[in-house]
């Protein structure tokens, strides 16, 4: 399907739902997205997860999620503890709700950091070209050559882990949350910056950009008003898929014990030392948090896939 409305024949128009009325690009994208069954499924799933976490945290306080009860250690799921308790007797169900808040918060904020960095670095490299481009791209390449998990671990140690607890939204949480956010944000912008650079490189040769320049637009205006908004589709898709990546990264570092520190729960740190529990048979300690991680990532990936198809009309990826 071509993007140019004028070149579409009437059956295509009918399929796209165009009936006389001219649709904005946003409406067209929404229409295509809605037709992507799996993406809608992902959207509903993600919405349900969010509702579960929000409603859950209204009824269950974070004191309860962090409360240690040595009398009730390693309880299997029962009526009192729906998902059992962990090795210090904390209720896993409450920790999943509050851990989910932290995991999603870390995911979203670190994506904001990485998308901003990726857009700026890639955009500037493509816009200025020359030695700016060379230096920025070599730096990007260098960062890409070190596997992300290695970078996460080293950078996490670099920033230091002895930060005091911080109060965020009326909750006292471990300072390690902030470190994890920065570390993930600083290590996951490279892919996007390459895509944005390529986009800007081709966009800046387009006629409308030269027109805008000849009308006297400053470089800053050209960059932010004309080039970046036209790469928005790519950026939105990359940030959705990046959200899945960030949640996964948080889970990995916390799983290795180098991420978010207890008592603050996150889905990742509920799994720390999980291999010992596997051998001892307390499956509920790692199965429930893992399932929530998998479901969240699955839903976000499905949404991202749907968005990619919706933004790219030529894409042949369909389920």
């Amino acid at each position, binding site marked *: 399907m071509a993007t140019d409305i004028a070149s579409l024949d009437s059956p295509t128009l009918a399929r796209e739902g165009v009936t006389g009325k001219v649709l904005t690009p946003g409406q067209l994208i929404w229409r295509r997205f809605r037709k992507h069954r799996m993406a809608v499924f992902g959207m509903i799933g993600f919405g349900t997860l969010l509702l579960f976490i929000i409603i859950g945290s209204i009824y269950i306080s974070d004191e309860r999620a962090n409360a240690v009860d040595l009398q009730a250690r390693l309880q299997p799921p029962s009526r009192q503890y729906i998902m059992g308790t962990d090795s210090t007797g904390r209720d896993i169900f409450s920790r999943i709700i509050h851990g989910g808040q932290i995991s999603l918060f870390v995911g979203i904020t670190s994506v904001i950091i990485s998308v901003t960095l990726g857009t700026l670095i890639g955009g500037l490299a493509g816009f200025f070209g020359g030695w700016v481009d060379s230096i920025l791209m070599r730096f990007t390449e260098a960062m890409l050559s070190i596997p992300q998990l290695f970078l996460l671990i080293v950078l996490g140690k670099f920033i230091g882990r002895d930060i005091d607890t911080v109060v965020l939204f009326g909750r006292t949480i471990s300072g390690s949350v902030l470190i994890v956010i920065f570390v993930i944000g600083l290590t996951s912008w490279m892919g996007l910056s390459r895509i944005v650079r390529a986009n800007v490189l081709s966009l800046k040769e387009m006629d409308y950009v030269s027109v805008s320049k000849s009308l006297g637009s400053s470089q800053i205006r050209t960059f932010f008003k004309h080039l970046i908004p036209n790469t928005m589709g790519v950026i939105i898709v990359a940030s959705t898929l990046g959200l899945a990546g960030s949640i996964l990264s948080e889970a990995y570092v916390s799983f290795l014990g180098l991420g978010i520190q207890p008592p603050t729960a996150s889905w990742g740190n509920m799994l720390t030392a999980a291999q010992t529990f596997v051998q001892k048979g307390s499956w509920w300690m790692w199965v429930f948090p893992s399932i929530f991680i998998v479901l969240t990532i699955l839903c976000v990936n499905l949404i991202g896939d749907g968005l990619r198809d919706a933004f790219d009309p030529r894409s*042949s990826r369909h389920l």
Partner: protein
Amino acid sequence: MWTYILRRSFQALFTLVIITVLCFLLTRFSGDPLAQYAANPRMSAADKEALKERLGLNDPLYVQYFKWLGLAIQGDLGNSFFARQPVSEMIGQRLPNTIILMLSAEIITISSALLLGIISAVKQYSFWDNAITTFSFVGFSIPIFFSALGLMLIFAVQFKAWGLPYLPTGAAVWDKSDPVEYIRNLILPVAALAFVNTAGYSRFVRTSILEVLGLDYIRTARAKGLTSRVVLFKHALRNAALPLVTIVGLDIPFLLGGAIVTESVFSWPGMGRLFWEYAQRSDYPVVLGILLIISLAVVILTIVTDVIYTFVDPRIRLG
């Protein structure tokens, strides 16, 4: 061709310099390597100062960097503070294990991804295609620790409990020179890695085969009266498998990252676990050594992948 390789190598050299500076700065400031002596009463402040002097930790930073780089080029990565052993020796002992793990996982991943991708593409929209697509989406969203813990629970813990022949969890000490023991310990980590990676690759193979099957030369081959088997395996598969070369090449950093988790779950004596253990102790010669080896491998493999690609796909000409 040769000018291309030369230019790429020159760029890579520049990238490598950035990598060494980056890694050096990050690891050098990530925690105090002498922290292990902090609680030692026999160690006076003067002793500590003397030790610092002897280890060269008091030199200006650039002196330390060039000293390290000069020795690293000659293959001397320094000594571990903690193990008091040459780093190159420590890495040398672990490297073969990681390579064996990665290669076996990669071979199984590629062959099963090709198999699943072909079935999926040839029987598009059939029951099997839908089943494989679902598997690939779910598998793609599964963190490696989940597949690792799940496999461990089933094949190591439960099989033992049910009295069936079971696989080791890697927790017990085992004889690394015994080939049977080695393979028994290798099976689960390889399966965990292959399971997760197959998911993404099989989806990729499917898309790529479907794209190739729509091309003109395939129609010509069919029109000649060739059987669909010949068309698929002799004509379509060759071109469809090409992009896999790039994907495999680009995925190596991710594979190595995944190895940290897999190796630590199964206590596999590889480089990833070595890195994780020594990063926690801030033993920076070891951490730095591993980062250098891995990024060197990634940089070289990227160039090799690009060059191989031009050999297998004559349509691409490098300028």
